[in-house]
């Protein structure tokens, strides 16, 4: 969109900026070409008004030749050509105007004096046009930097939001209350098992503490967090919960954002296993290939299960955090196929030392 055309306020300001230019032109005409001041003013103001509109067109070549992506020769050629065309047009209009004026007695002989002023007009025409070009480049520059600023703001806001959600998601209260209820059941029937579950729950909680503040942890640490989580859930769900793990041993030292996989496994339990009368299996695959870490979490689920509306919050959180950290270098896919639900992640493998 043209920054001036179509904005009344800006148009008024723009035309006002041309008033001193018109005065300058009048001064030059009067001093160098034997026109009297009256003739100079009568010529300069209408001509500058016309030229103000001609120069508005300089915006379009500026926009298609951005400074940072155009070679110097192309820039020079484009704008000098533009300047010549604009100036030629201007001189033509000026010629018509003086011809018309010299018909009247008051301006007799103006056409002859004008002919002598043509080189001056060519000079100012080119100069004014190039001034407009410079002006438009400044506008474009402001726009670009404002855009960049907004993008940076948005990215950091997203990242902070994702972090906050990660912190909140650390311990799902539903999980905690259910576990406490299981412990309470066991204290009556099997105190040793109740104690074991207290210890497992304590272990899991301790591991999650402080994780939200770190920007990355070794994958191995995330995996032991998952093991602690599953050990607790295993007591709740008994034989309904099964886990198969297939982890590339080279991958355990790769740095990953904390609590990236645990929510996926938690989802697999809450939305998969918990909805199955006979239970099911969660499969976790981690592979490292050419600097890319691929992770797959797959679980059995009942497609006809009652819909739980918290569904998908965890997945969206994981996807946003991947995006905030790795941008378009990360891939995220979640899909249901028959009675299995799979979430696949791919992101660059960063060695532990370079992270955090």
């Amino acid at each position, binding site marked *: 969109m043209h920054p001036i055309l179509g904005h009344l306020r800006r148009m008024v300001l723009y035309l006002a900026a041309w008033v001193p230019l018109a005065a300058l032109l009048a001064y030059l005409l009067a001093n160098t070409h034997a026109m009297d001041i009256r003739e100079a003013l009568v010529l300069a103001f209408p001509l500058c008004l016309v030229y103000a509109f001609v120069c508005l067109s300089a915006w379009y070549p500026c926009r298609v030749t951005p400074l940072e992506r155009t070679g110097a020769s192309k820039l020079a050629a484009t704008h000098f050509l533009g300047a010549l065309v604009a100036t030629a047009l201007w001189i033509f209009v000026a010629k018509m105007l003086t011809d018309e004026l010299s018909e009247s007695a008051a301006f007799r002989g103006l056409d002859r004096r004008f002919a002598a002023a043509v080189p001056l007009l060519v000079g100012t025409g080119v100069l004014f046009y190039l001034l407009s070009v410079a002006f438009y480049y400044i506008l474009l520059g402001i726009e670009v930097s404002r855009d960049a600023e907004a993008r940076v703001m948005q990215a950091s806001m997203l990242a902070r939001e994702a972090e906050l959600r990660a912190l909140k998601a650390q311990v799902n209260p539903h999980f905690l*209350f259910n576990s406490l209820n*299981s412990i309470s*059941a066991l204290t009556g*029937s099997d105190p040793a098992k109740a104690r074991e579950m207290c210890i497992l729950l304590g272990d899991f909680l301790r591991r999650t503490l402080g994780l939200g503040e770190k920007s990355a942890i070794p994958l191995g640490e995330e995996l032991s967090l998952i093991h602690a989580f599953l050990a607790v859930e295993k007591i709740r769900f008994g034989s309904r919960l099964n886990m198969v793990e297939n982890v590339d041993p080279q991958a355990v030292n790769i740095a990953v954002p904390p609590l990236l996989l645990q929510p996926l496994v938690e989802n697999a339990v809450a939305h998969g296993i918990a*909805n199955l*009368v006979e239970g099911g299996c969660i499969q976790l695959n981690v592979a490292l290939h050419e600097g890319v870490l691929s992770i797959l979490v797959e679980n059995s689920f009942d497609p006809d299960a009652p819909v739980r*509306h918290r569904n998908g919050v965890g997945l969206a959180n994981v996807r946003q955090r991947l995006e905030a950290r790795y941008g378009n270098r990360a891939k995220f896919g979640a899909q249901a196929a028959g009675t299995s639900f799979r979430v696949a992640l791919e992101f660059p493998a960063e060695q532990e030392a370079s992270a955090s």
Partner: protein
Amino acid sequence: MSPEASRKLRAALVDDEELARQVLREYLARHPEIEIVSECANGFEAVKAVAELKPDLVFLDIQMPKLDGFEVLDLIGPAPAVIFVTAHDNHAIRAFEVHAVDYLLKPVGFDRFEAALARVKERLAANAQKQSHSLPSAADLAAAARPPAQYVDRIPVREGTSVVIIPATKLDYVEAQDDYVALVSQGKKHLKQQTISSLEAALDPSRFLRIHRSYIVNLERVSRLEPYGKDSYVAVLADRVQLPVSRAGYSRLRAFLDR
């Protein structure tokens, strides 16, 4: 004392986690006047057990396989007193402060459990004196408990002791019949004890429209509107079934069809 009062209270425990049932079993063991007639690990079992055994009291978990606690409540009818037992559900808390006999939060404390049981006994004694239909139907309770702006995408219906689930997308229309609604899906009618208004409130209004005092129609099934007698209309569905359209229903339907 009437023989009614001396009869044992019959209770059903519904929770998919064995340990959660174990807590309730342990607490109930201190009450010789209460007999556990059934333990169920999912919603289908619960509906079947309630239909067959007609317990006085049901302890009901909310998150379970097959049918959730709301759907079970919806199906088991108004007869048993229901105590929800849930780990964490703000909507349930809000709803049952108004309607249910009680709710218990996990981990369940013994004192709180005793208080809930006392309320159940009070309620059952009061009900024995009152007409049972003075209570709102269970389906209406469940509909009221649904969080706002969250519409059902499936409707469970009990047929004898088994459960049929009708996905909202496969529901063609609903017809009110006295205290029941008939849900028509793929040419079959399923009866359910619920008012048409509470079902209307549970269905997504952008997909279902009340076209008559006694009819709700799935908008995707309507193929055209035809005049029927003097200024009245019928909606013709894709399978040529004709449904009466009231004056108010006509303007609502017209607005939809014109969009």
